[in-house]
């Protein structure tokens, strides 16, 4: 760094140092005035002053400071410094005029062409001005041409039928017009033989004339109004039956031409009147149709009801017959049951009478027997002496009883004595067994004490001990068996 620059920087640092010191003094002054001391804030301010001071000292010492200088950092920490301005945001040309494309901010001036907004389709909001075509709704004003009313299927049919009728009539007229010169020719030519027409009693209606259909006797509610030249009028003007063949040459009577169609009214009132008339006619037709259908329905219903009544009557008659038969059968059964009951009652009455008679006979027999027995008992009561045989028997029995008692007492005494003997002998036997056991133990101890003696003497001693013990045990058993036998004998006696 050059010397001048260093000096300049030093000067700047000195000024900054002074400013910061003063600022710190102002801070202390503010705290004093407000009497609100903040050590942290003071420390921070002091650090800033110390930073500048350090840098200044370093610069004075000839040491170039590293990093950004405090003078450069002396900006607020808001980030407002060194930020690009709005002017820098433009390209270097700076040519931003109204001729350029407009940004997508939606800010359009009058100099820029607007997008063809007027030619856009309207949204489906239903907002249509008078200049636009009307939607298909029922809202028609007088300024707009009213749309043709939608015809129903039946109305269309009726219109078609009417049209066909008109065409047919026109054809008839045309035919009649053609036939007229022919008849004139026929009148002039007399020599030509005429075909004899069949004499018919009934008038033959025109072939082209519509005949009323039998399948449709009732007019439809939706049918159109009947046309003026009704088919019924055709048979009303029949041709006279030709009495002679020459009379067939008479000209055909042509029906009067139909009235020319009325011109279509253009006045809305006339249109309305026509519509009203049409609707009235339709209503009338519908009314007639309804009446006819009601009548037909009533007839049909009546017939159905009559049939139902007849069938019900037949069913009722059959049911009545069945009921009568059932009643007759029931009466017959009841009669049979009554007869059976009568028979059973009579038989049971006879049986009861027999049983009563039998009981009476038995009672009489019992009474006779009782009378006989009472007569026999009175006879021994009158004698009164005791029987000596019976008395001897009683004394002998008493003697036997006493002897038996004495024998039993004697046997009991003997048994008690014998029991004492057995107890004593058992005690003795126990003593002997104990003595034998003691002797055996002694012998074993002796055998163990003298192992040096020969094996033969030891075996002999053992066998002798065992034999003695066996003898003692068998003797004891014999004694016990004897005592048991004697006990049993005494108990049985």
């Amino acid at each position, binding site marked *: 760094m050059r010397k001048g620059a260093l000096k300049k920087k030093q000067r700047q640092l000195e000024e900054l140092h*002074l400013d*910061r*010191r*003063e*600022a*710190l*003094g*102002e*801070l*202390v*002054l503010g*705290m*004093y*005035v407000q009497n609100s*001391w903040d*050590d942290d804030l*003071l*420390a921070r*301010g*002091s*650090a800033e*002053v*110390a930073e500048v*001071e350090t840098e200044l000292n370093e610069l004075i010492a000839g040491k170039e400071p590293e990093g950004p200088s405090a003078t450069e950092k002396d900006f607020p920490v808001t980030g407002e410094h060194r930020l690009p301005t709005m002017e820098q945001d433009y390209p270097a040309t700076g040519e931003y005029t109204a001729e350029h494309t407009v940004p997508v901010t939606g800010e359009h001036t009058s100099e820029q062409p607007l997008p063809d907004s007027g030619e856009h389709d309207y949204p489906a909001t239903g907002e249509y001005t008078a200049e636009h075509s009307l939607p298909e709704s029922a809202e028609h004003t007088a300024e707009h041409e009213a749309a043709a009313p939608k015809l129903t299927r039946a109305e269309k049919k009726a219109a078609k039928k009417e049209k066909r009728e008109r065409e047919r009539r026109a054809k008839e007229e045309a035919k009649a017009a053609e036939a007229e010169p022919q008849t004139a020719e026929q009148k002039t030519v007399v020599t030509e033989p005429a075909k004899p027409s069949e004499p018919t009693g009934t008038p033959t209606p025109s072939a082209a004339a519509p005949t009323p259909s039998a399948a449709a006797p009732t007019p439809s509610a939706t049918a159109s109004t009947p046309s003026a030249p009704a088919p019924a009028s055709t048979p009303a003007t029949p041709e006279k039956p030709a009495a002679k063949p020459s009379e067939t040459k008479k000209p055909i009577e042509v029906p009067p031409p139909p009235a020319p169609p009325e011109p279509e009214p253009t006045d809305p009132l006339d249109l309305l009147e026509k519509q009203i008339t049409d609707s009235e006619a339709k209503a009338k037709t519908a009314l007639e149709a309804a009446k006819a259908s009601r009548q037909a329905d009533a007839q049909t219903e009546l017939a159905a009801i009559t049939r139902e009544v007849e069938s019900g009557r037949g069913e009722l008659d059959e049911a009545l017959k069945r009921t009568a038969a059932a009643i007759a059968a029931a009466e017959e059964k009841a009669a049979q049951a009554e007869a059976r009951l009568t028979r059973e009652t009579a038989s049971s009455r006879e049986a009861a009478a027999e049983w009563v008679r039998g009981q009476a006979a038995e009672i009489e027999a019992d009474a006779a027997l009782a009378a006989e027995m009472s007569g026999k008992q009175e006879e021994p009561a009158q004698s009164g002496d005791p029987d000596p045989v019976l008395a001897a028997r009683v004394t002998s029995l008493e003697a036997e009883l006493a002897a038996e008692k004495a024998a039993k007492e004697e046997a009991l005494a003997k048994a008690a004595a014998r029991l004492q003997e057995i107890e004593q002998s058992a005690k003795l036997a126990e003593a002997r067994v104990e003595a034998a056991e003691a002797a055996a133990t002694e012998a074993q101890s002796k055998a163990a004490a003298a192992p040096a003696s020969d094996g033969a003497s030891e075996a002999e001693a053992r066998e002798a001990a065992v034999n003695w013990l066996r003898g003692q045990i068998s003797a004891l058993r014999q004694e016990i068996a004897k005592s048991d036998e004697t006990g049993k004998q005494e108990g049985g006696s």
Partner: protein
Amino acid sequence: MALFNRGGQSGRERRAMQDHLRELDEMRRSNLSDLGQMTVEMAAQGRFDRQRLSEGAAEVVKIDREADLIARGLEEGLTLQELEDLARGVDGSGSSAE
């Protein structure tokens, strides 16, 4: 000269007042700088002596008060005597401002 008089204040008084105001301003800056240096030293020691700081700040407050008075005298064209009276009245304690 009467045209340039502002009340009873003479030009000399005015200049004196202006000079005194500059002096006061310098003194204020100096005192503030000293106060700041004192704060830095206290921060280096790790402890702030509020008594000393209050004394230094009170000196600055006195300077501010006198400077305000002089500025008012300059604005209103008061004489030095008037200014002294005003200072006594303002002070209320009988001691005049320096």
